[in-house]
């Protein structure tokens, strides 16, 4: 059904795909740097437990909603209790590749379905 606009990649596009893959491989920087500089959660993204430590109580609505969704790979890891930095880096890379591939594929599909400008 997409035959009239088969997508062929040019050199620059192939190059960008390779750069994206390389970026996925170095994503553990995103967990190692905060660890090294002793930085914690993003502002406003604390767990209910951390909020309790910060303000002395867990707001009612927060307690009610905070576990409303069970994500299959929470926090980009398969096992948050695993203390090995090497393992966590590996999980992070795999999460990056899964997420980036899903994002890429879904965006391609959406674009093919909606774009009608053949120029």
């Amino acid at each position: 059904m997409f035959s009239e606009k088969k997508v062929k990649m040019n050199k620059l596009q192939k190059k960008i795909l390779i750069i994206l893959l390389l970026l996925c491989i170095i994503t553990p920087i995103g967990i190692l740097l905060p660890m090294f500089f002793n930085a914690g959660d993003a502002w406003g993204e604390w767990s209910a437990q951390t909020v309790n430590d910060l303000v002395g109580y867990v707001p009612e609505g927060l307690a009610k909603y905070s576990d409303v969704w069970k994500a299959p790979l929470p926090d980009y890891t398969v096992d948050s209790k695993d203390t090995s930095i090497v393992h966590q880096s590996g999980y992070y890379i795999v999460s990056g590749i899964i997420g980036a591939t899903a994002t890429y594929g879904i965006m391609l599909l959406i674009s093919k379905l909606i774009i009608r400008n053949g120029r």
Partner: protein
Amino acid sequence: MHIPDGYLGPQTYIPLAGAFVAITAVAVRKVKNEVSARNIPYLGMAAAFSFIIMMFNLPVPGGTTGHAVGSAVIAILFGPWAAMIAVSVALIIQALIFGDGGITAIGANCFNMAVFMPFAAYYIFRLFSNNPAKKGKVFFAAFISGYLSLVMAAILTAVEFGIQPLIASSGGGKALYCPYDLSIAVPAMAIEHLLIFGIVEGIITAFIVRYFLRNEPGLIYVFRKESENE
């Protein structure tokens, strides 16, 4: 900047979800005619880039973390409407698969990072640059566009957090949702984005726009739009 579940009450997340859905409908119509089919692979890559760049958490030493979003560079290169859809796809996958950003807050997070930010970035860029021949100016405009749009999106997010104690509290003055009010949320998020994360967004935006200006100048949406208007 990914608001989790439980930090916004329904009075906030329902209107933002509604706004997001309505704006998405407009975006689909715009992208349908505005974006060339030749750019389809780039859009997929742009969405993936946004997803990946948000995984690079940067530290405030001894404090919190944050990250760039990529909305500014996507808006300059492919237009704010295409950026809106691309970054929304990344954010929705982050929420559904990785629990990064709440399910109830998908509309709010998409509104902040995928709607407000690319439009702010796009118009800020146009304020500072309209001539692709002036490369230094393009570089500067792209930096400012990335820097300010991320800071502004962070402040918008902080306002959504900060109005929660005003909207809803239980007995005894305890907040129902985000416990911090505007006087804490806004300075905290503004300062970390002004000092660290915004600068990173600016640098990424400036270098990628410069790269495309050298290698594929005909593709850059913001300049094609300029020449159409003349």
